[in-house]
């Protein structure tokens, strides 16, 4: 059976990169694997809303066209409104899938993501990117935001095992800003290691050992609390130029 991912993928392939498509489908969660025929009107709207945000970012000029094409392929065999209650297992999975992504609306809403596996790094990165663009940060700043979140999420997966990344959008007289809070209850960082990290001499087994220093250089404000044996919290702020 043709799933949302198949249908939307057929429209998007060639227009946006495979990596971006995968990130979009990751964001859709269970909805991406729901057969188009079992998609209720509410779920269809959710899918389109997600796509709209992502396409504005990645397809730029052709986003309206692509969105209309996605709308068409999803309408081809969408269940009528009355059929909503007769949805099978697919619909239930879909509903669970949107619970986390449904809270994207007005400014000032916080979003928190659990980070545990490598695929969560990509999800956190894309979320950060779209959030940065949504609140009006420049395209270049959005890439910096995504890179910083990538570094922080990677640190969580590599060294703490699991943790969370929180995004908070702010707006004040100086313009929009995005606050990123990465928290884990991992091993923390020993003072001596910390000295090496900030001195740029630290070398890790798996990465470059320069992730934290890199984040610090990218952001407007940076703050880190780390307690050996207890965990680490990194708070940083990206501010838009106005």
């Amino acid at each position, binding site marked *: 059976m043709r799933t949302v991912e*198949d249908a939307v993928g057929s429209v998007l392939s060639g227009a946006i990169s495979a990596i971006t498509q*995968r990130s979009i489908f990751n964001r859709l969660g269970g909805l991406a694997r729901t057969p188009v025929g079992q998609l209720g009107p509410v779920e269809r709207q959710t899918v389109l809303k997600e796509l709209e945000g992502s396409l504005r970012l990645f397809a730029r000029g052709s986003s309206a066209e692509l969105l209309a094409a996605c709308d068409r392929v999803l309408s081809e065999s969408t269940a009528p409104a009355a059929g909503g209650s007769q949805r099978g297992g697919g619909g239930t999975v879909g509903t669970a899938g949107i619970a986390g992504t449904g809270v994207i609306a007005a400014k000032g809403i916080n979003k928190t993501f659990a980070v545990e596996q490598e695929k969560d790094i990509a999800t956190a990165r894309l979320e950060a990117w779209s959030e940065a663009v949504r609140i009006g940060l420049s395209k270049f700043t959005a890439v910096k935001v995504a890179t910083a979140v990538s570094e922080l999420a990677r640190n969580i997966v590599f060294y703490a095992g699991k943790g969370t990344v929180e995004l908070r959008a702010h707006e004040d007289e100086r313009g929009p800003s995005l606050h990123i809070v990465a928290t884990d209850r991992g091993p923390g960082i020993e003072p001596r290691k910390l000295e090496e990290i900030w001195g740029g001499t630290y070398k890790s087994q798996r*990465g470059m050992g320069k992730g934290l220093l890199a984040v610090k250089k990218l952001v407007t404000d940076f703050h880190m609390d780390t307690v050996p044996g207890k965990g680490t919290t990194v708070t940083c702020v990206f501010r838009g130029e106005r």
Partner: protein
Amino acid sequence: MKRSTAASTGSDGRSRASDQSLAIIQIRNCLLVSIQTELHDRLALDLQEALMERVRTAGARGVILDVSAVEVIDSYITRILNDIGKSVRFMGAECYIVGIRPAVAMTLIEMGVELDSVHTALNLDLALERLELLQ
């Protein structure tokens, strides 16, 4: 419709296979890899090994990694690219990274992260041209 689905990241077998390994394409005596998927430890190591083996068997002079589809390059990915560059250089070939996006380049500069074990070129054509000159 069917054709384009196969090229997408749909649930068909072909794209799932590409999650586990990256295709290495030979153009004259250069090896080309287009990075379209998330690089992680296992995949990067497999790619590095496969490239070194292919450099040896094909007698390749250059390896070109196309990252034009990669929207974010962080310090971890940079390390992977540098490691591949180093190992290829040990084999006597040169490694070119092509298609780095402007925003990605700006970010890497600000982070103070170096891509110093590889060459870079704007696109595939220019990388091939420069590798040709090495003859």
